[in-house]
């Protein structure tokens, strides 16, 4: 005797918005589940008219993609929401940003234009900046050269079903070393394969090939996420929506 909810089905999705947000400061220690909870509550507080799935425990229509690992900061996290009433994207961005704790800052919100393809498909690479306090820049450069010269660098990765060897080399598109305020920095572009190669996997690879062991924990920031372009850099994943919507509305594209 299955019960069905009384009343009409929930209103349909009439607008899809795509948003970029950050994970800064102490909130880099939030996990993707913590962030999902925080975003859902903030959407309620900001009174964003969410579309819901049908059924007894209706869920708001939200898709999260490619979350940065717990402990890594990010300037480029993305998610998509379905609305039951149309709203101005900029107003949604501002209201949501005001409802979130400092550190989770909503930087951009654009309307997904029909026919512009899925957002998840546009997130196939990340540009990481990994600060390595206490590491000598020359030693780091040498380690990176050794790593890049390899065909395959296997690192053990913990997964749900025990450990698994993953090729860290295959995922790395490019790697460079910089120095800022006396701190060695590794800039690395990583292709998002399954399983994902994360900053700690890259560090494990450097330890494996060049015996590099930082004295202090590394601090990683995802600086950009998007599609790998021909020049090996990461393209803005919201670009196509901006282009498409500006075409519709006859406004110049902002970049």
């Amino acid at each position: 005797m299955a019960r069905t909810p009384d009343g009409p089905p929930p209103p349909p999705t009439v607008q899809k918005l795509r948003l970029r947000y950050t994970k800064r400061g102490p909130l880099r220690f939030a996990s993707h589940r913590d962030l999902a909870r925080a975003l859902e509550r903030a959407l309620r507080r900001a009174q964003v008219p969410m579309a819901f799935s049908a059924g007894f425990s209706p869920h708001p229509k939200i898709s999260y993609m490619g979350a940065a690992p717990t402990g890594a900061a990010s300037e480029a996290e993305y998610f998509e929401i379905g609305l039951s009433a149309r709203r101005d994207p900029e107003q949604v961005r501002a209201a949501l940003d005001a409802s979130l704790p400092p550190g989770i800052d909503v930087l951009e919100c654009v309307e997904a234009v029909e026919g512009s393809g899925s957002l998840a498909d546009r997130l196939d690479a990340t540009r990481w900046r990994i600060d390595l306090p206490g590491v000598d820049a020359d030693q780091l450069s040498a380690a990176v050269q050794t790593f890049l010269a390899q065909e395959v660098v296997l690192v053990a990765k913990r997964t749900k079903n025990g450990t698994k060897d993953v090729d860290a080399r295959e995922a790395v598109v490019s790697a460079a070393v910089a120095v800022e305020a006396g701190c060695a920095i590794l800039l690395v572009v990583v292709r998002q394969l399954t399983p994902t190669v994360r900053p700690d996997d890259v560090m494990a690879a450097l330890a494996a090939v060049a015996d590099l062991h930082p004295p202090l924990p590394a601090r990683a920031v995802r600086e950009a996420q998007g599609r790998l372009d021909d020049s090996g850099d990461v393209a803005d994943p919201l670009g196509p929506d901006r282009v498409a919507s500006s075409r519709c509305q006859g406004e110049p594209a902002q970049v």
Partner: protein
Amino acid sequence: MTVESLYPRLEPLLAQVQKPIQYVGGELNAQVKPWDDVAVHWALMYPDAYEVGLPNQGLMILYEVLNERADALAERTYAVWPDLAGLMREHGVGQFTVDAHRPVREFDLLGVSFATELGYTNLLEALDLAGVPLHAVDRDESHPVVVAGGHAAFNPEPVSDFVDCAVLGDGEQVVGDITDVVAAWKDQGRPGGRVELLARLSRVDGVYVPRFYAVSYAADGTIAEVRRTRDDVPARVGKRTVMDLDEWPYPKQPLVPLAESVHERMSVEIFRGCTRGCRFCQAGMITRPVRERTITGIGSMVDAGLKATGYEEVGLLSLSSADHSEIGQLAKELADRYEGTNTGLSLPSTRVDAFNVTLANELSRNGRRSGLTFAPEGGSERIRRVINKTVSKEDLVRTVTTAYANGWRQVKLYFMCGLPTETDEDVLEIAELAVEVIRAGREASGSKDIRCTVSIGGFVPKPHTPFQWAAQASAETIDHRLRILREAINADRRIGRSIGLRYHDGKPGVIEGLLSRGDRRVGKVIERVWRDGGHFDGWSEHFSYDRWQTAAAEELAAFGLDLAWFTTRERTEHEVLPWDHLDSGLDKEWLWDDWQDAISEDEVGDCRWTGCYDCGVCPTMGTDIQIGPTGRSLLPLTPVSR
């Protein structure tokens, strides 16, 4: 003097521990005030993991009440898991608050809320991590005053070596009084040092300073006398009672964590106190009389809280929520207000009566009809008369069946095991009940897809209840009864597979019993257990019975006592109990008479409806029952843009 944040030194450690988010603060509605702007600094601790401590209402209330004062600030701190504690010791980082990561060592006061005695070892761990001397007598003016509160503080004797004071009763007003005393003492240049400050605090209503009371013991090990050592402290310390709940609509801005916590909802306390008179229930006894929040007061708290948090569910909290004088109207009008908003409303576990099903139906009419919880507590009608929670077997089965017939799929039933006068037969009746409930439920709902979860807790006699004299059942007795119950439930697999049984073995209850009814001599056991590595005693993966048993055997031997003396020994009528000088308002003679009534299976009514039966609270504390109905109603809210 300003105080540095420990965060820069803590941050590298966080990268190496489990669930680091619990240590970074930044919750929605958290507050950080400049250190130098205020005279009095409170660190408020819940001595368990963050996920358990954050949702604690008491702590949230005091956090807000104190932070609203211009002359005070309050920050929160929780028990640190062993992985981080180890790193903190290695790197010299002290116990910190999650709000501004200030060292607990630097605060004027450390308020610790003990919902259960199993948090005692976590207090010792936090003091040690903070760099605060474990023993109150070893602290000087530079150390925080350690204040215990919460229900366990009604017998703080086992932790009297480690706390400077204990606060009895409602905290809302007394934290303000304490703040005033500390502010004045600091402003005057700390005259008389720490002892003078404690003497002044001991004159605040509801504040007990153990060091000003000396305990002597008789040859048989019982307490001979508890005598004050200064004549400017009260001979007996009475509890505090907040009389008008509508004047204290806290928390106004409930904290919302990023991390997962045990309660993913907000709660509104709809009344405080309970006079149902369940004889096992310490909470009901020590929080008398009943004081209701009005229907309109509740309505505005629900509204403000939902706006402030973004939660999807509101729990209407109290010891027995269906007893609110306006509950029917409240349930209907709240359900009307939030119709079509995906907002869930719920009551905590309830008494077994048909009205509760009606209420639950009303509250869930917007959708979710997942599980209902009832608490008959006793398996047989006889034992339910002993504990004064009378409901007939027929009524119980009928009520649960009604719930299934109304579309509830999952019913949870709470029972206790090890109650005074209990026999194997009383416990075996739980199995009969569960089987009957499933049979009748399948018939009434026409579905085999219904479940009944039987959840069993071992009974622990608590201070300030009629059962404070009772012999606690031994762990062996509890384990034996649980085993025969499990066998009885599994006897018929066709029914048994619809019944879930949840229980813990009897051992942790024995330790809880030692800590609940212990005296000052038990402090040695607590300290020893902590020194041997014990903490997080509320977590089965950390609790070690062996460690407690060894410590109790060795430390209590010096006094010629043992674990059994504190737990399975029945007390006599005139024995001086360790908490007799702490006044919950209940008349000891009334408690004793009620204990005798329990043994002879006599019931007592509820003073809200059958008239005062002189438990003593109202005249002693100068309080009164405060209940409605008020005759007011909830208007629809202005609809939000959707």
